[in-house]
């Protein structure tokens, strides 16, 4: 369907471009400058008749116009000969007939996403998409909150939703409002910390950590607070403390639950790394970055739909100085996005920019 539209548009365009060439040129049609000056003469006479010009200036004006009319007549333009005209016309038609569609289609093949349908808001597929309910809910709660900004429960409800939607700044605000209105709870406090951490691209900042500490003080059983305190230690490079904290948390979690496994993998990763004999002088920082990168890598291996993730990962490896890994990611990403030309273009552009050979 889209190709049909594109084809017919191309057809109309070529028709429009070639239309004048199909017409026989009427040479007499072109207006010469003489008309202009003859018009001037008439105008002067009209003005004189209406009394806007006195005889003297009218006479002067006429002389001048007549002089210019003569000058214009002298520059009559020579016409080109017929034979070369026909040749040129053929070339021009060919360029329009072939050049335009070829240029347009090849550029469109690079830039366009012909397979992507329109997705206006009203027609978005609602039932299959669990997020759709979320949108409606968010909109409802937002509407309510703009009328009742002192509804602490509302803020508390919407805050984790913002967090999961990636609206971190809104989440921070909402958690903050909820804490202010409802009062201190470990869940809200650790949520606030998590939002701050997410806003800082996954780094447990001092600010976020103080929230987790508060939540932990309030309720030592709060799993999120425990987990992020451990992660903070891990990011600070304090592996021993991180391990202790993770292990303590693991004991309270059922081993086959999702959080349990998450914590177990962290412990495994940390113990593995600890076995390494030497540390980089600035290990704290780069180890932290490494971990974040590896987490992202692991996520993308299971779910390759996140284009931004791929781009980030590619960039990260390149920045870490791991060229082969980066070009490996590039090929994996291309595979994962094989049927999305738009994404492929972006990936190649990014790879080029990063100087990844492939």
């Amino acid at each position, binding site marked *: 369907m889209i190709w049909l539209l594109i084809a017919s548009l191309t057809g109309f365009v070529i028709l429009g471009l070639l239309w004048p060439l199909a017409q026989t040129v009427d040479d007499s049609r072109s207006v010469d400058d003489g008309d202009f000056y003859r018009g001037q003469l008439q105008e002067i006479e009209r003005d004189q008749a209406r009394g806007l010009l006195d005889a003297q200036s009218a006479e002067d004006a006429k002389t001048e116009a007549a002089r210019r009319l003569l000058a214009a007549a002298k520059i009559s333009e020579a016409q080109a000969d017929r034979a070369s005209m026909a040749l040129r016309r053929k070339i021009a038609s060919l360029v329009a007939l072939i050049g335009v569609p070829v240029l347009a289609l090849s550029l469109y093949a690079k830039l366009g996403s012909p397979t992507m349908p329109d997705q206006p808001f009203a027609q978005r597929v609602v039932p299959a998409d669990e997020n759709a309910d979320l949108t409606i809910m968010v909109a409802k709660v937002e509407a309510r909150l703009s009328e009742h900004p002192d509804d602490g429960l509302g803020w508390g409800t919407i805050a984790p939703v913002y967090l999961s939607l990636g609206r971190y700044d809104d989440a921070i605000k909402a958690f903050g409002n909820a804490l202010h209105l409802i009062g201190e709870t470990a869940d809200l406090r650790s949520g606030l910390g998590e939002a701050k951490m997410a*806003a800082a691209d996954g780094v447990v900042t001092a600010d976020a950590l103080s929230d987790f500490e508060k939540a932990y003080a309030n309720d030592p059983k709060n799993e999120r607070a425990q987990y992020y305190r451990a992660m903070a230690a891990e990011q600070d490079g304090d592996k021993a403390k991180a391990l202790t904290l993770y292990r303590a948390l693991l004991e309270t979690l059922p081993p086959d639950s999702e959080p349990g496994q998450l914590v177990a993998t962290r412990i495994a990763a940390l113990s593995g790394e600890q076995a390494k004999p030497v540390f980089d002088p600035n290990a704290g920082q780069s180890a932290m970055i490494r971990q974040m990168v590896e987490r992202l890598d692991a996520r993308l291996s299971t779910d390759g739909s996140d284009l*931004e993730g791929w781009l980030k990962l590619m960039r990260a490896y390149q920045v870490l100085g791991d060229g082969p890994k980066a070009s490996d990611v590039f090929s994996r990403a291309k595979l994962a996005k094989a049927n999305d030309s738009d994404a492929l273009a972006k990936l190649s552009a990014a790879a080029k920019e990063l100087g990844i050979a492939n």
Partner: protein
Amino acid sequence: MAMTRKQKRLVLIASAGAVLAIAAGLILFALSDKIVFFYTPSDITKQNIAAGSRVRIGGLVENGSVVRDASMNVTFRVTDTETSLTVHYKGLLPDLFREGQGVVAEGVYQGNSDVVADTVLAKHDENYMPKDVADALKKKGVWQGGKTQ
């Protein structure tokens, strides 16, 4: 008043020259006298800026430094994380003026790390910081550019 061709040309050229000369003079004078240099707080102390000179300073509003009084006088400190200056200002602060955020103030340096400002500009939208400030802070390695999208 019949003029020869040459005279006409001369008059035209002379008047054009006069206007251009006046304009050039104005521009040069204004450029030497009416421009204001931009400094960070450390520049001010390092370069020994003379008291009484007109300056434009940029940096971050130091946390907890904003003091307002009843007659709309405001005092705050502007820092580039190294040195800070005290800015005195009377009037309304821009909507986006906030502690910890970028700010540019223009006024007269009083010596002794004091500036009496007549203009205070804050960053104008969420993703925008006065370029002067961003550049100066970037040099110091503080500001990390925008968030990755």
